[in-house]
C-alpha cells in the first residue's frame, strides 16, 4: 500500500524475504518503482549535481544525518551511467598516508553495513584484495605500507610466495615468469561490490527520505549573485539552490569552469573490460605489481580487468586498443590460462585526475558551492564515505575531520596527499 505521508514523502515498502514471497504469488507484476520520477521544483535547499554513487550518497546522508530533505539530485543522463557503472568494483582501504587511510577505512566500515543500512543488497563481498610484489624492494615497501595500515587500525597481512600460491592457485608463481612473484600485501576485508546496486540502493533510500532524483537534467550554468551561488540553469529549466554540491567525476573541471574556477585536474580516459563468463577460477582481487593490472571475477563468471590510463587528456568515454593490449599482456604474466579467453566487452570512463592522486572534498572559493571530485581511478570504494563527509561539509559549511585534508588549497600550500611520492603529475591513483 502506498501512503502519502506529511511532506509528500512516499512510504515505500521495505524489501524482505516476505515481500519477495508475497510478490512471487502474483508473478512479480506489482512491484512499485524503486524511486519516484518527479519534475524539478522551482528551488531546493541543496542541489547535488551528478546522479552517480557519490551524488546519491551525498543526498542520502544530507537527509538522514543532517535532516536536510529539500534536496534534488540532478543527473544529465541516467543514474549510475557514468563512472559508477564503469569501474571495476574494487573496495579496499590499503593506503599509506594517515588522511587517506582513515578516510578509506571509514568507507570500508560503511560498506560492511551498507546493504542493511539501505535495505538494498549491494552485494558487498569481502573476498580480499591482494597486491603482488615482484622485487625485494617492492616487498619492503609493502611491509612498510602494511605496518602503516596496522598502526592505523586496518587489517593487513604480508604473504610470502607460498602464501600467495595457496591463496591463488592459478597464478603463475614460478621462477620462469617474466616478473616472478615474491609475495604480496593482503587486505582480507577488502573485496568487491555490485556497482549498479550502490547507485540504485542510495537512490531508493534517498528518495524515501524525500530527495527528488531528477534524471535527463543537465546543468548548463551555475548562477551567482554577490559572491554566492543562487541556483543552476538546466536543460529542464532554472532551479534555485541555497547550496550546490558538485559530484560529477570526470567533468569536475567543466562544472568548476561554470563558476569561473580552474582546478588542479586533468580529465583522462580509463578503460576496463570483461572476459567471457567462466566457472569460478578466482575468489579474490589480484593486482599486478610490475605493471598496472587488476582483476577479479564477477558473480556472472566474467573476469573483470583494468589497468592504466590511455595517458592523454580525453573526455571520450571510449579508449584505444594499445592501452587494452598492455593491460591484457600484464594479465597474462600472472594468469597464463587467460590467453585462451575471449574478450567480451570493453569500455572507458572519464577520470578527473588530480595532481597528487588524492580527491578534493571541500568548499570552493564561492559561497554555497562545494566540490566532491578528483577521484582519479579510485572513486568507487569511496562512495559511502564520500557521500557521508560531503553531506557533512555541505550541511555545516565546513569539512568533517575525515576530509579536512582533502582541500583545494593543499596544492598551493604544499600539503599534498601524494601516496606515490611522484610529484605533480595527473596520472597517480
Amino acid at each position: 500500500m502506498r501512503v502519502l505521508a506529511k511532506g509528500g514523502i512516499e512510504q515505500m515498502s521495505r524489501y524482505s524475504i516476505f515481500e519477495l514471497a508475497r510478490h512471487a504469488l502474483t508473478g512479480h507484476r506489482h512491484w512499485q518503482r524503486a524511486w519516484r520520477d518527479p519534475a524539478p521544483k522551482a528551488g531546493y535547499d541543496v542541489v547535488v549535481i551528478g546522479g552517480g554513487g557519490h551524488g546519491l550518497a551525498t543526498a542520502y546522508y544530507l537527509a538522514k544525518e543532517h535532516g536536510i530533505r529539500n534536496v534534488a539530485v540532478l543527473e544529465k543522463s541516467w543514474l549510475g551511467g557514468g563512472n559508477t557503472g564503469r569501474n571495476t568494483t574494487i573496495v579496499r582501504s590499503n593506503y599509506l598516508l594517515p588522511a587517506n587511510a582513515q578516510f578509506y577505512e571509514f568507507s570500508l566500515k560503511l560498506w560492511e553495513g551498507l546493504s542493511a543500512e539501505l535495505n538494498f543488497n549491494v552485494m558487498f563481498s569481502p573476498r580480499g584484495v591482494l597486491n603482488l610484489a615482484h622485487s625485494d624492494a617492492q616487498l619492503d615497501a609493502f611491509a612498510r605500507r602494511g605496518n602503516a595500515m596496522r598502526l592505523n587500525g586496518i587489517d593487513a597481512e604480508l604473504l610470502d610466495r607460498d602464501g600467495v600460491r595457496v591463496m591463488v592457485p592459478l597464478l603463475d608463481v614460478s621462477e620462469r615468469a617474466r616478473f616472478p612473484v615474491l609475495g604480496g600485501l593482503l587486505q582480507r576485508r577488502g573485496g568487491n561490490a555490485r556497482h549498479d546496486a550502490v547507485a540504485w540502493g542510495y537512490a531508493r533510500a534517498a528518495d524515501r527520505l524525500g530527495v527528488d532524483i531528477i534524471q535527463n537534467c543537465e546543468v548548463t550554468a551555475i548562477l551567482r549573485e554577490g559572491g554566492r551561488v543562487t541556483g543552476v540553469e538546466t536543460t529542464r529549466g532554472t532551479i534555485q539552490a541555497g547550496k550546490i554540491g558538485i559530484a560529477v567525476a570526470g567533468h569536475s573541471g567543466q562544472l568548476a569552469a561554470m563558476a569561473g574556477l580552474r582546478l588542479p585536474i586533468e580529465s583522462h580516459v580509463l578503460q576496463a573490460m570483461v572476459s567471457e563468463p567462466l566457472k569460478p577460477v578466482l575468489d579474490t582481487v589480484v593486482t599486478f605489481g610490475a605493471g598496472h593490472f587488476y582483476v577479479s571475477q564477477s558473480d556472472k563468471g566474467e573476469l573483470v580487468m583494468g589497468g592504466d590510463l590511455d595517458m592523454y587528456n580525453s573526455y571520450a568515454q571510449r579508449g584505444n586498443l594499445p592501452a587494452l593490449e598492455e593491460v591484457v599482456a600484464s594479465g597474462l604474466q600472472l594468469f597464463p590460462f587467460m590467453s585462451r579467453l575471449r574478450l567480451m566487452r570493453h569500455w572507458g570512463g572519464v577520470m578527473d585526475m588530480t595532481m597528487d592522486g588524492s580527491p578534493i572534498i571541500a568548499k570552493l572559493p564561492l559561497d554555497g558551492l562545494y566540490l566532491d571530485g578528483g577521484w582519479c581511478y579510485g572513486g568507487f570504494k569511496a562512495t559511502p564515505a564520500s557521500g557521508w563527509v560531503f553531506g557533512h561539509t555541505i550541511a555545516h559549511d565546513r569539512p568533517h575531520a575525515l576530509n579536512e585534508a582533502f582541500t583545494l588549497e593543499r596544492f598551493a600550500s604544499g600539503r599534498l596527499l601524494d601516496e606515490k611520492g611522484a610529484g605533480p603529475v595527473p596520472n597517480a591513483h
Partner: protein
Amino acid sequence: MLLIPCPWCGARDHTEFTYGGDAKAAAARPALELPLSAWHEHVYLRDNPRGRHLELWHHTASCRRWIAVERDTLTHAITASTDAGRGPGGGTG
C-alpha cells in the same frame, strides 16, 4: 589509435609518441622572481578543456622532436601540428 601528423615524419601511430600534456601550461613557465601563486598556477592548474586542446607529444620512437598538436579531447580529431621547438609553422621546413 590516434594518428598524429608529425611535421618531420608524417602521420604516425600515437604509440610512437610520449604524451607531454597541456602545451599552454608548459609554455607559460613563470619567471623565478614571480610569487608562489604564479608557480602554483603553472604547476597545478589546468584549463582541461572538453574540446580543442593544444598539447605536446614527444616523438620518442622516431625524430625525437617535441610536437605541438591541436586535438579535440572529445572527438580526438587532430586539426594542427607543429614542431614545438620552432613555434607555429616552424616544423614544415
